[in-house]
């Protein structure tokens, strides 16, 4: 580890090489008592007798013209207060591209698209009344494959793409086509280099859209006050993005919108798009003065709300005989669904990191986010990277096979490092990229990798598969976070930050940072766990594994500010220089004080210090701090040149499976991850993030994915037919961490919230390909898929 760790500020204790007393230790989570007693309150847990309930009516058709809507019977039904349809709100909404109506007006573009809302005294009444709404549709032809959508542009789903209002830095739609965004990457000259390659491989990879499956479904409570103020409580990862969306959608001034976010029951990206907030506000505006609750059913989350993006991709990878990668040509046709939402940014994220953590000088990549008649898509844990990783890693595995080079050694040979450039030509430094080589070396030991990927024992094949992972965030150049640190009379500290506690434990980590800087017991640091956009300083979004970097730097600065204030007040009292004051154990004292009576509890300095005679010196100790992401630049629209994120966390991952040749079934025995996390701040939380991500990744890869009917409607929107991992489905998980510090981040930390997941689909696909001798390039990797692949090969059963 480097010795000159100095992040953002000059605070010595913050350096990784100094002994820390709270950082690096597994202190209990701050939300433990709330969560093991059932006391923790999530959005749906707030209700009262006066609250009204909203129910959504969604389209049964994947693509249809709306001929007529008759709401009279629904409106007349018992308990009904309002029935809202698209005509009530001609406004468009959506971020970064306003390409949909709040409720469909003349056309629906996916089965599940909201068409009406009923507000009633009880949920049962609202739901019953939705069935009385009569809507006549004329079904239209649909398009399901993103690649076909690209080549045919028929049906053209958004003929009026041109006037849609969008953020041109985030989305690049092409009018007259079904392309919601196009992201080009041009590095070097691949065209000229194919001739130099001794071996070239090509693969096609595909998978359908999928579901985040946060256990809490999306819930919003909205109320419009008589003065027009709007109060929203929502299970969101992005509460601070809601006021501006309300302005864009309804023309409501952002200052009039207040958003509360209590505990959130998992997000995984699915709660980063404010998708149902406009619907809840549309309903609340019709019954102003009353709270309206809109809670999605599981089926609605799976059919109506944005899910995990689907993909069809093609990759061509060339190398020299000795295994040096030379050139890559990659095309992604992402299945973004009927509306752009965040799927277009996922597309950019995948494209900008398309090569994975490998040194490739010549890269041609096109990322297309395609409109189809499937549900829209948004961020999903990994944000384009599990997708990008599966594509490139399948090509690498195939190349290793062709070149007869040990797949792990081939990856080591090409591992990216400081001095190399990424596909967007960002030059890496020892700080901005973790240690890929080191991760592979460690993985080799942990996976007992001896160069052969398979061992056959009768009808059973034991196979291994590996993948390397990298990820940077796709944060805007001004992504910021603010924090407030208050010193209380009883010498405890209170921390305020706009990070949402979605389960990742960031607020516990922020408390650790404050405890470390105050040299105080973590039990004396309180964090406010809910978020209120009116009173908490803004935090960009709780996404992209960026919360500990952004909020961490802000909290560190706020704590240092509070400490500075305490020292100043103490210096008047103790009659010594502020610089000579120490703050530790809840006391302020002079550095050279031998006299322990000269220790002042910091609580006695919280509002200035009052002497016995009543006169007071100093002022209230309230520290504030903020941090805005650094070094990030926009990507050039024609070459993609630019710096997409502040640093890349890297990892090497592997799985070992047991495959039964006669039944095509398999079991994952164990899964291994080596993650360069910069610094382990909280060992158990870090482990929980990685292992949880691995479990989600294996579940996604092995058994998850929407099954559509002929028109494009999702046919499996329930957990009994969408079989995610349950207790006992999990293999053994082994995790190790390396610590190559990011010099910009507190204690050198790197984001790790998504990385456990990223390489799992690729590692599993490689293991299965090795086990079966076929190219397993699709998800979900079910026994049925393996059987089909075998059958298509011609020697199946």
């Amino acid at each position, binding site marked *: 580890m480097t010795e000159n760790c100095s992040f953002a500020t000059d605070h010595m204790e913050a350096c990784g090489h100094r002994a820390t007393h709270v950082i690096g230790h597994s202190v*209990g*989570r701050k*939300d*433990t*008592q*709330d*969560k*093991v*007693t*059932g*006391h*923790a*309150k*999530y959005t*749906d*847990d707030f*209700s009262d007798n006066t609250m009204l309930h909203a129910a959504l009516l969604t389209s049964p058709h994947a693509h249809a013209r709306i001929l007529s809507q008759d709401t009279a019977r629904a409106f007349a039904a*018992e308990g009904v207060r309002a029935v809202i349809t698209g005509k009530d709100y001609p406004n468009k909404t959506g971020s970064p591209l306003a390409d949909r109506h709040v409720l469909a007006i003349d056309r629906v573009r996916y089965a599940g698209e909201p068409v009406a809302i009923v507000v009633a005294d009880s949920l*049962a009444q609202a739901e019953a009344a939705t069935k009385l709404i009569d809507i006549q549709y004329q079904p239209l032809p649909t398009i399901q494959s993103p690649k076909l959508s690209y080549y045919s542009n028929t049906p053209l789903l958004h003929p009026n793409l041109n006037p849609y209002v969008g953020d041109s830095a985030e989305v690049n739609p092409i009018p007259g086509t079904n392309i919601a965004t196009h992201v080009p990457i041009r590095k070097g000259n691949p065209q000229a280099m194919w001739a130099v390659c001794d071996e070239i491989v090509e693969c096609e990879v595909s998978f359908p859209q999928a579901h*985040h*499956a*946060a*256990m*809490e*479904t999306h819930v919003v409570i909205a109320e419009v006050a008589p003065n027009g103020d709007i109060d929203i409580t929502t299970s969101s990862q992005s509460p601070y993005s809601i006021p501006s969306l309300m302005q864009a959608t309804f023309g409501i001034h952002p200052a009039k919108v207040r958003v509360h976010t209590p*505990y*959130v*029951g*998992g*997000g*995984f990206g699915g709660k980063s798009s404010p998708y149902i907030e406009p619907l809840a506000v549309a309903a609340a505006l019709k019954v102003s003065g009353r709270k309206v609750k809109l*809670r999605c*059913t*599981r089926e609605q989350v799976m059919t109506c709300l944005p899910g995990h993006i689907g993909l069809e991709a093609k990759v061509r990878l060339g190398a020299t005989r000795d295994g040096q990668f030379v050139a890559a040509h990659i095309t992604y046709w992402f299945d973004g669904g009927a509306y752009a939402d965040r799927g277009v940014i996922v597309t950019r994220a995948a494209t900008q990191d398309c090569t994975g953590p490998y040194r490739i000088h010549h890269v041609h990549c096109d990322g297309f986010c395609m409109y189809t008649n499937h549900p829209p898509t948004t961020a999903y844990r990994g944000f384009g990277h599990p997708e990008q990783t599966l594509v490139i890693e399948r090509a690498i595995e195939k190349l290793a096979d062709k070149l007869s080079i040990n797949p792990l050694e081939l990856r080591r040979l090409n591992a990216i490092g400081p001095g190399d450039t990424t596909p967007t030509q960002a030059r890496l430094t020892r700080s901005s990229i973790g240690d890929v080589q080191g991760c592979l070396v460690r993985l080799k030991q942990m996976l007992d990798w001896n160069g052969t990927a398979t061992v056959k024992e009768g009808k059973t094949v034991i196979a291994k598969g590996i993948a390397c992972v990298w990820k940077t965030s796709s944060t805007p150049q001004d992504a910021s976070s603010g924090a407030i640190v208050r010193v209380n009379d009883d010498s405890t500290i209170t921390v305020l930050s706009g990070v949402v506690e*979605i*389960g*990742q*434990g960031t607020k516990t980590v922020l408390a650790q940072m404050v405890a470390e800087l105050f040299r105080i017991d973590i039990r004396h640091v309180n964090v406010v766990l809910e978020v209120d956009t009116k009173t908490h300083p803004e935090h960009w979004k709780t996404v992209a594994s960026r919360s500990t970097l952004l909020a961490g730097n802000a909290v560190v600065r706020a704590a240092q500010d509070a400490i500075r204030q305490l020292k100043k007040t103490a210096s008047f009292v103790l009659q010594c220089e502020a610089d000579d004051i120490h703050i530790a154990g809840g006391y302020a004292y002079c550095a050279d004080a031998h006299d322990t009576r000269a220790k002042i509890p910091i609580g006695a300095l919280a509002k200035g210090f009052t002497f016995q005679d009543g006169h007071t010196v100093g002022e209230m100790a309230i520290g504030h701090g903020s941090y805005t992401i650094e070094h990030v630049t926009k990507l050039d629209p024609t070459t993609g040149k630019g710096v997409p994120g502040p640093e890349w966390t890297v990892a090497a991952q592997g799985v070992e499976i047991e495959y039964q040749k006669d039944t095509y079934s398999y079991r994952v025995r164990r899964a291994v991850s080596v993650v360069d996390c910069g610094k382990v701040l909280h060992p*158990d*939380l870090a*482990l*929980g993030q990685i*292992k*949880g991500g*691995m*479990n*989600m990744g294996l579940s996604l890869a092995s058994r998850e994915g929407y099954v559509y009917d002929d028109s494009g409607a999702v046919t499996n929107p*329930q*957990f*009994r037919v969408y079989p*995610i*991992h*349950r*207790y*006992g*489905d*999990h293999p*053994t*998980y082994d995790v190790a961490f390396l610590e190559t510090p990011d010099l910009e981040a507190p204690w050198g930390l790197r984001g790790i919230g998504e990385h456990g997941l990223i390489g799992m689909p690729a590692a599993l696909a490689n293991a299965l390909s090795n086990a079966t001798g076929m190219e397993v390039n699709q998800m979900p990797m079910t026994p049925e898929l393996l059987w089909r692949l075998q059958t298509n090969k011609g020697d199946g059963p």
Partner: protein
Amino acid sequence: MTKHEVTLHINGEDRTLVIRHADTLLDVLRLQCGLTGAKPGCENGDCGACTVIVNQLPYKSCIMLAIEATGHTIMTIEGLKHSPIQRAFAKCYAFQCGYCTPGFIMNAHAMLLHDTSIDEPTIQEWLESNICRCTSYEEIASAIRMAMSTMNANLPDNSKPNSPST
């Protein structure tokens, strides 16, 4: 809409409530009793987030009518205090977002009421009715083992608990 007055025995108290016949136990607990520990995750019997204990057995309260619960002893997470399984969940980091946690704890608690020396396959049989999307399940498995060993350590030899060990 016809409503009915019923008395439910919840967490040691009798609660007299006016309900619709169609109301699920989950809705009545959450909306009428203010017991929001049991959560809706699917309202279809698929996820276990709504699990409560009825007569010492775990039930998914989203697919049980409140009216069916009359005359039975209902325990929700709010009625469980300082149990070995709660302590173990805390110690083993067996939760992250916490949304599945009350359901998992109630299911596991019912299992441990039943037997504190069971093997992995049996544990799986009990717990596979619940879904956790955040953890890797290994943390929950460790919590179960830890709770089992505390309970066994506190018991005289060869005896099994027959009441909530709180």
